[in-house]
């Protein structure tokens, strides 16, 4: 607690004997109280957020109960609301984006951290940071004008031709849909994975590499078998940061996903995501139940993120116990 002064770890032999008043005057105590309040505000905001979502969605939760997660009709006129197509769309697009972004991002990070000359690495890092800072609506525009026509004219017909026997690559090719949304998301999250993974790889102690090399390992062997496992926790961290962004992304997704609440195996089909439907319908939702259902969707997205984050933590704990030392980022 902020008021108990005895728990403050003493900074030196003198600090312990100083009175509360003198420390207050010198700023230690003030700094501690202020920073504590800042830290506490994070917890407070999270709790308030959940409370608000829970409270405001209450009538919709009571009306639909568990059916909200099982049904897939979303009809604002006749007030039937089911969240399944949105949950499906959110998970599918996030999964596609990670499938593409993880190998590309980690590969690029390894090159930048281990193999590229420092000058090249630093220059590229500048561009990557720039990419990470581009507003998502810009990626959406890029998606509409470049990715969508490319998908419709070349990529989707090619996939249909070669892999059309799979249910994922069937049906009409509009250019928009799950696959396009996943690809645009991948482009958006790759900079995060590269940037964080590169930092983590660079922070692996030099003697780890030297030890591996001195045992006769090649450059690649030392990178792949020693450096990357050493940095595993941090790399996972970058992936989960990317996942969080992919789950919550709104603008870029709504511009290319097709905004149709339907579940279909084909990745060419238009779909919908939770964040997109909230952004699309919230301002013009006139019925109370419609608004509440959208708020409940917000709660679902929160829970989804929470569960996936929990998994992430478990995974990091599990892998770091099994393997070598842990890298902290």
């Amino acid at each position, binding site marked *: 607690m902020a008021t108990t002064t005895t728990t403050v770890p003493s900074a030196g032999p003198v600090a312990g004997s100083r009175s509360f008043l003198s420390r207050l005057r010198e700023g230690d105590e003030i700094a501690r109280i202020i920073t504590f309040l800042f830290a506490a505000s994070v917890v407070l905001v999270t709790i308030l957020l959940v409370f608000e979502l829970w409270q405001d969605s209450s009538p919709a939760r009571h009306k639909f109960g568990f059916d909200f997660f099982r049904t897939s009709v979303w009809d*604002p006129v006749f007030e039937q609301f089911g969240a399944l197509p949105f949950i499906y769309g959110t998970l599918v697009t996030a999964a596609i984006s990670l499938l593409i972004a993880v190998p590309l991002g980690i590969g690029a990070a390894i090159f930048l951290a281990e193999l590229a000359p420092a000058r090249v690495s630093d220059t590229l890092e500048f561009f990557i940071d720039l990419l990470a800072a581009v507003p998502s609506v810009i990626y959406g525009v890029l998606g509409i004008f470049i990715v969508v026509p490319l998908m419709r004219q070349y990529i989707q017909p090619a996939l249909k031709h070669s892999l059309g026997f799979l249910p994922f690559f069937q049906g009409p090719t509009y250019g928009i849909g799950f696959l396009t949304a996943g690809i645009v998301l991948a482009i958006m999250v790759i900079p995060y994975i590269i940037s964080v993974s590169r930092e983590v790889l660079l922070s692996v102690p030099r003697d780890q590499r030297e030890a591996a090399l001195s045992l006769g390992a090649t450059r690649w062997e030392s990178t792949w078998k020693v450096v990357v496992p050493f940095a595993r926790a941090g790399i996972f961290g970058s992936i989960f940061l990317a996942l969080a962004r992919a789950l919550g992304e709104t603008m870029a997704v709504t511009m290319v996903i097709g*905004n*149709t609440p339907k579940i279909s195996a084909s990745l060419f089909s238009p779909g919908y995501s939770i964040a997109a439907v909230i952004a699309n319908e919230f*301002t013009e939702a*006139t019925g109370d139940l*419609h608004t509440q259902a959208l708020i409940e969707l917000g709660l679902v997205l929160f829970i989804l993120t929470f569960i996936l984050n929990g998994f992430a933590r478990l995974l990091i704990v599990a892998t770091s116990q099994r393997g070598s030392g842990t890298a902290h980022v």
Partner: protein
Amino acid sequence: MKRIAGLLLVILAVAGGVLWAAAALTITGAGATFPYPMYSKWFDEYHKKNPNLEINYQSIGSGGGIKQVTEGTVDFGASDGPMNDEQLKSYQDKHGFAVLHFPTVLGADVPAYNIPGVTVELNFTPEAIVGIFLGKITKWNDPAIAGSNKGVALPANDIVVVHRSEGSGTTYIWTDYLSKVSEEWKTKVGKGASVNWPVGLGAKGNESVAGTIKNTPNSFGYVELIYAIQNNMPYGRVKNSSGVFIKAELASVTAAAAGAAKNMPDDFRVSITDAPGKTAYPIASFTWLLIPQKFSDAAKRDAIKGFVKWMLADGQNYTEALAYAKLPKEVVTKELKALNSVQ
């Protein structure tokens, strides 16, 4: 430290004083996005004429406008669809007096398409439009479309339907029209700012709908008339209730309102889709200001009444430059009368 704090106080005081002097009275409103360009022009012009009055309008959407005026957080609201009886009742219960609708301008939806090889203006019957949006008419050369377009070589391609993804007044007008011309649409889908679309792709905003139509061969969708005019988009004629295929233009939209004006209810909550009259374009609508009937602040009341009066007279001259259709004279007269009941 003290000096900085003192300086800050002085700056705040000066800034506050300047703001106070600049606008003696600020009125806030919120709501519909569709008429926002018009409203912002009006509020700006009116502010030039009355420097002491500032009208601050936030285009947060019609749903938001209705909610905020009901909550009492804004002085007036604005909506593309009239408030329903339930919403009016909840306003009355909360405040003890009513909220009034005042039509400001007119908007219309037009059917837009992209069929490779077809450059002429197509004619659409209500049956064709409903059939396409219900997913019953799936090919461009369907007799329901080809029948009213003799001599046009329509391809046997699948129609890709494009609609708005976000809740919007444009969608409200479109679905209101479809509900009027088709019993099946009314019972299956209904009207609203967002509906459960039987078929099609959802695109966000007029820009996206237009972009998707432009980029997707054999597509069909709807956009606001203003948007089609400003972007030179080709769009089709629609058969009105008198059986005439008519193109959406500012004149034909105003004609639709004039046709409806004769039976205008006193509360102005009227839908003018499928309006009577040979020259009336059938997919049009008013957009409304939502003004409380009673104000506790007399200065605000007089300011709002003054603005509405100006908007109905001089204000209407600004509409066509921004591609909004004017209110017919009958409606203006009726509104001026209704304005007197605001106290």
